[in-house]
């Protein structure tokens, strides 16, 4: 039994790292711009399709495609912020909510139009490889996904801590007027933060594809996972998202095994509502 549990822990943590990467962009966006990106899952879906196309047409290894995905998605996010989000920043929440919902609708249905409802994935030479440690299996794609996720998250945290623009982003999230008075260009910083958030979810898509498959509505599945993690971790704490991602990965692994693989979703959605009700600031968030 102990061995089963350890295997579950391994799998859960590996998955959790990827989940953390998925959600950290959402946390960043909410922390800085104070809007929920309801299209977050759809951005993930777009990235997965792009990774698929790069693999199909250029034979580009999905992990290598990060070189393309990261800058492309940053610019994508930057543009969307400037065109759609920025004009609505002072509007009532209704408008902000439905703007991103509208985006999500468009993305998933354009995908449906272009790719039909088929499931697609990429298979590399090592897709099914496993590393074996004693009695434990570690899936190679999962390990790579985890490593890349952790590396990117670490890079992001370092960026926010050490660079001027990164500090500007943190400052803007904490105290808007003072940030303005420091000479921080508020609107440009908003766009950069949004762009970074989208780049993160783009990266998550690229490393997720080999582990899963893409279809036009795959976004809604992962959207809610991301929301749960953001809320659990504390909606303005990036470190919180990392920890929460790992926790959710573990929960999914364990509930999938002990309860049912189908009902695991119900488990963390109920968890989600629970947290929203009893501890809306999450584990690390501040009021």
């Amino acid at each position, binding site marked *: 039994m102990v061995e089963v549990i350890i295997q579950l822990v391994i799998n859960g943590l590996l998955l959790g790292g990827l989940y953390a990467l998925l959600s950290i962009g959402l946390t960043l966006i909410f922390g800085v711009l104070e809007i929920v990106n309801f299209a977050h899952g759809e951005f993930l879906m777009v990235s997965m399709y792009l990774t698929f196309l790069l693999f199909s047409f250029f034979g580009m290894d999905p992990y290598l495609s990060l070189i393309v995905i990261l800058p492309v998605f940053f610019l994508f996010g930057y543009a969307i912020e400037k065109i759609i989000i920025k004009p609505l920043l002072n509007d009532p929440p*209704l408008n902000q*909510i*439905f703007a991103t919902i509208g*985006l999500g609708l468009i993305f998933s249905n354009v995908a*449906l139009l272009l790719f039909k409802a088929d499931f697609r994935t990429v298979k590399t030479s090592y897709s099914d490889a496993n590393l074996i440690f004693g009695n434990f299996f570690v899936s190679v794609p999962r390990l790579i996904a985890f490593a890349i996720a952790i590396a990117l998250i670490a890079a992001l945290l370092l960026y926010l801590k050490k660079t001027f623009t990164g500090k500007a982003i943190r400052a803007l999230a904490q105290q808007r007027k003072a940030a303005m008075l420091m000479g921080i260009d508020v609107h440009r910083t908003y766009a950069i933060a949004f762009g970074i958030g989208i780049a993160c979810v783009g990266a998550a898509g690229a490393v997720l594809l080999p582990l899963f498959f893409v279809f036009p509505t795959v976004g809604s599945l992962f959207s809610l996972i991301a929301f749960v993690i953001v809320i659990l971790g504390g909606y303005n704490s990036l470190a919180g998202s990392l920890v929460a991602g790992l926790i959710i990965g573990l929960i999914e692994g364990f509930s999938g095994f002990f309860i049912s693989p189908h009902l695991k979703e119900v488990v963390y*959605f109920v968890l989600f509502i629970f947290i929203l009700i009893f501890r*809306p600031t999450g584990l690390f968030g501040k009021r």
Partner: protein
Amino acid sequence: MKETLTTLIESAKRFRKPLIALAVVLALVIPLLPRNPFYQDLIIMIFFWATLATAWNLLGGFAGQISLGHAGFFGIGAYTSTILYLTFGLSPWIGMFAGAGLSMIVALLVGFPTFRLTSHFFALATLAFGEVLRLLASYWRELTNGGVGLLLPHTPGFRNFIFDNKAVYAYIILVMLLAVLCVTYIFKKSRFGYSLFALREDPGAAESLGVNTHRAKMYALLISVFFTSIAGTFYAQYVAFIEPDIVFTSHVSIQLALLSIIGGIGTVFGPLVGSLFLTPLDIFLRGWLGGVFSGLNFIVYGVILILAVMFFPLGIAGWIRKKIAGFEKAPELPEKTSAEPVGCPEARAEHRAEAGAPLMTVDAISKRFGGLEAVKDLSFMVREGEILGLIGPNGAGKTTVFNLISGFIVPDRGTIVFNGKDISSLKAPHCFCRECIGRTFQLVKPFQHMTVLENVMVGAFACTRHTEEAEKAASAILQRIHLSHHAYTMASNLTIADRKRLELGRALATQPKLLLLDEVMAGLNPKETEDIIGIIRSISRDGITIIMIEHVMKAVMSLSDRIVVINNGIKLVEGLPNEVVKDQRVVDAYLGGAYHATAGLK
């Protein structure tokens, strides 16, 4: 509850004419149309989506609570009646109400904890709720047959709620549509409707005017859910097949919102208009292009949605309403009443008899925010009928004191006794309003999308349930505060001086014994200040006790009977104006000791 029913029936009687006209028009549409089942289906779908969207709008547009999970209640309605019918042979007519009942219970359970979330999170929570139900329905196969769905056998009959002739369905959904439109229309003109709009615009201001915001939201949710649920049953009976990915899907929830946004959120007929435009578009897109370009309709929806929120947030009906308001001649105000003195009758009587008895006694209240002690052991007293000025330098804690005595903040320690009653432990601002304490806010909070008259009526509704009485009372107040000529102007179009008077009038309408005025004169020019001073004096003459925070010193000194000076959260001095102003401590607090009489500089 009984009173609400009587008011509802009264209102229904008054609005007979327009409603009957509407009913006739809509009813005529059906027989006049060709017997083509395609067009019959179109009409049914238009009415169907209009019903759902109007129900959603009651919560989302009127009360401002954006729900993305209404599909959940739609599904509960559809599945409950269907399961009861298939398992027990229970007539779906009855099952429909069973489903509605279940939906309402679930709504209560879900609404109670989620209503205190902010808009974005509330939307998220409702989205999650809808998804949970979808998954439960998918995987609880014993109950719902899972993803396979449930098929209703075609056994026509009234009892079975299944008909061969589509026209019957059309009439049924028409009745449902009319019912929900009726309810919405009646609410709009009633106290409940005003409460909803007020709480959507500014929950804090609404609470200060006596609106129990939590309860109002709950009622709106329950009614919205009721109609959503019965529409679910209708759908099941009409389409005869339901499965989780159709009825519980978030697309349904989004569509409801979309129709309301396009049509005009917060208007009665907006969702119907939205449905009139979008449902045919949807059916044509799906019908003509569905096979080849599946999903195109949603792309169009997405684009329309983004364009709508960016450029056309009022929606069609909202835009029309705005244009009409510009051209409408302002109707006559209800009969000109002689300037009736406002204020609780007892206040006036006692003013003559016993001016001077303590009305409110604040005893050693304290409030700490994190590391800062904003108010420290503060005690003061205000006498019946007097005007008490509350002054002090910036950051002294004056607004915190107001928030403590009007119910917006709960004191850490100390007591507040008002009119002989200890009110320190009351939890919500609307309770303080009920005790006859009214207030204005430092940064005025007009209900922007309501007219001046409607704004004051929200306050008047604190004292009466009847719209006509509220209207009369509000008109009288408008005369007092010199805003009658603006009765039908949108509050957002007022100048700052008029907004301050509006705020004052709105609070007056709640018939307070004690009125708290927070910097009512800030930003006014001398003439406007004179005007408001006059209004304040006349309010005082009617026996209403007033506490005012002011920085316009000349005004507060001349108006106040007594003054309390606060600095750094503690009371420095309490006394007559010309004594207080000569008190060295006060001079020091303001001017840093520059005006020490003789001995030189401190």
